[in-house]
């Protein structure tokens, strides 16, 4: 059930982000369903592939999307059990996203052009650091909830006192930064800039077209949904009705849009410092939890 909703609603989240950004810019903006139209349009088009590329470029969009869908099978939302769950599924979840990234990077390198290369080099720079933050968060969650699978880890409860909620809020803060970085949003990357030099994710997929590009766009939307859902499940107790959970995930869209509208993309040299801050928050949460146990 929640898998179906995830697969259907994911592009809507991107639409909400863009609508919010349009609102802040004083424009009317495209419909919130624009990505659905784009996907349909792209599926009807033919694919042009680079003559430099090999089978890696041909298969990468399919592998990436499959990996992301496989990951979304494991995410619990609103107290509903996911399709698949087992001890340590959290690790498989993030490693599947790693597979998607690995092949996106390889396909970007396969077209032998400086722009995708530039994007992919930055992508691996950020993601390598993010990986450690994610796992510090997971260690914290496992310790806090006493559970070793995602569906157990993501069942927060209301805290009686504020002090007990501090580590959780720190982890949620770290997760918010991870969300922005992993999904290539401002201040790490600007998906709407007009200069290839300054992009990360969009630069990597410059040479993709047609159904391939549709797969990539859909995968990116799904990934944003997964990270937003993770954030919501981290904070929102499972005793709240699941409709509110889905609404909260959708509410992440305007939130991200507001963040994107209120700040500029940071210089690439500075971005590792934000990630360092997120790492510090996650490790601090973990240490606090170890001390109190």
């Amino acid at each position, binding site marked *: 059930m929640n898998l179906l909703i995830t697969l259907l609603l994911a592009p809507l989240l991107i639409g909400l982000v863009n609508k919010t950004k349009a609102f802040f810019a004083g424009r009317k903006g495209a419909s919130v369903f624009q990505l659905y139209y784009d996907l349909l349009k792209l599926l009807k088009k033919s694919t*042009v592939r680079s003559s430099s590329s090999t089978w890696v470029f041909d298969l990468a969009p399919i592998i990436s999307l499959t990996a992301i869908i496989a990951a979304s099978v494991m995410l619990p939302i609103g107290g509903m059990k996911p399709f698949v769950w087992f001890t340590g599924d959290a690790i498989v979840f993030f490693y599947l996203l790693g597979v998607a990234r690995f092949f996106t990077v390889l396909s970007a390198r396969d077209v032998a052009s400086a722009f995708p290369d530039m994007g992919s080099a930055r992508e691996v720079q950020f993601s390598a650091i993010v990986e450690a933050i994610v796992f510090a968060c997971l260690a914290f969650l496992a310790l806090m909830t006493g559970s070793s699978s995602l569906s157990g880890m993501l069942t927060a409860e209301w805290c009686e006192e504020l002090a007990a909620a501090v580590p959780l809020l720190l982890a949620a803060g770290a997760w918010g930064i991870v969300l922005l970085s992993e999904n290539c949003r401002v201040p790490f990357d600007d998906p709407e800039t007009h200069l290839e030099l300054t992009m990360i994710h969009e630069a990597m997929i410059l040479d993709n077209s047609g159904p391939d590009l549709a797969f990539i766009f859909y995968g990116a939307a799904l990934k944003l949904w997964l990270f937003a859902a993770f954030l919501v499940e981290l904070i929102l107790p499972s005793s709240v009705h699941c409709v509110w959970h889905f609404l909260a995930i959708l509410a992440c869209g305007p939130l991200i849009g507001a963040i994107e509208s209120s700040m500029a993309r940071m210089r690439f040299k500075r971005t590792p410092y934000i990630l360092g801050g997120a790492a510090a928050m996650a490790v601090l949460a973990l240490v606090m939890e170890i001390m109190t146990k």
Partner: protein
Amino acid sequence: MIAIAILFLVPILLVGSAALIHATGYLHGDGKKRQGWFYFYMIGTLVSMCAVVGSTFLGDKVMTMLAFILAWESMGLFSSGLVGFESESKESKKATWIYLLSCHAGAVFLILAGAFSFRPEVSQVVIFFLLLCGFGLKIGFPPFHVWLPEAHPAAPAPASAVMSGAMIPLGFFGLVFWTGVTCETKVIAPYFAWSMLILGSLAALGGILFALPQRNIKKLLAFSSVENMGVIALGLGLAAFTYTQGDLLTLDGKASVVDGIFTLAALGAALHIVNHAFLKGGLFLGAGSVLRMTGTLDADKLGGLMKKMPWTGTLFTLNAFGLAALPPLPAFLSELCIYIAAIYALSQGVLVIPAAIILIVMSLTGGIAAATYAKIVSATFLGEARGDQSEIKETPKSMIAAQLILFIPVAIMLIPALLMIAPLWLFRRFLCPRGNTKPRQLTWDCGYEAPTARMAWTGTAFSQPLADTFKAVLRPRTHVKSTKDIFPKEEAIATETDDIVLARGWNPVFHLSARAMQLFHLFQSGSLHFYVLVMILAIAALLIWGAF
């Protein structure tokens, strides 16, 4: 014990046979005599590796010890013949020298440990640390890893495959076996666990960090071997930590928890030994094929090889995908076991600190490993060729067959992966109205019509942003040739990253000791009269000493 022996014998025999098959193509064109020497060294190495494992079945402690040391030493000697086999160059000689030195230093520690183990007054902790130094030199724990990135690039590829895939992990075999024989588990478990945790973290993180900026394919693979040994050590360390929880076993029903952690962590370490052997063996053989066909191992001078060598390229790509420990390939499964053990320990509130350290270290290692393998695959095989490749063709069948032998575990795990991507592939192929009909076009490149391969980023450039983040550790040396004139002239930039432990740790030590040895040079004047004088003085001094 039999099971552990098989665990180590499988990589030795399978990687060994694959390497021998690969060597028939790799040595093609070498003289009969040279080939003879190669097979002599190679089979000698393989036989002594089997003897190392076999010697532990002798039963009698003294006999076992003697046989083990003999087999261990002959393994080092035979393989040093392989390290120096490829060329007469200065680097090759230096690599052989460092390798021989580290082998013998290891043997010294082992002989000391063996001798002390018969003296009850020597503490078991001392014996354990002697064993750790002795076997750590073979495993390649920092700061003892320096021989790996020197010896592996120098040795012929089949030899590197055997040494990296099957020989280095034998260090773990020796360490676990001899610690078990000479020390009591209860006493040594905390020392074992903590040293594995610390050395494993250093090896995993340090190994992959230094692998990242390397241009030489085999040097990169050698550093990544250090990383994988680190991962194995982390698994073993977590398993050993459960022994320190002994008093919990009977108390509050945590017996099954601790058992579960032990089983998972030990299983992960054991599986990773086998998986690493297959994958790294395959990668080294692939690197050998690249060297044989192109004449260089410098990834920044290659590129686009997938079109010329589709078999080698595909196998190398998939092996690299596997060794980046990404699902669903085998190396992920072994790391997953260690991960699950750690996360399970955390969720049960047991061994919290080591488990948290292991999770974070392994995830950071995993992230950088994915970047490293993406770099080496893309720089070597993807994109456009940086240089003339018109003469290059696919390797002889024997070399591909050798790699296919080591590819079997990956192939098995690829079947479910292919089934998973099949629906989307079929969807794109048959349901998208205009599917894959267009012919391939030039890369878009902002509409530029005449791109050259030089416009794409090299492997070094690709890894530079991430390497820059860690430049406090890596200390890359950059040579810039730039012009300050108004008109542009030729400019150049080159970056090298040396092994910092060798450059700043061991080299100064060796230089200092060489200088200290210079003092003895005073006595080596070459004149007989002087020697006679010294001898008479020494005898006189001894007589006087004896008299009082």
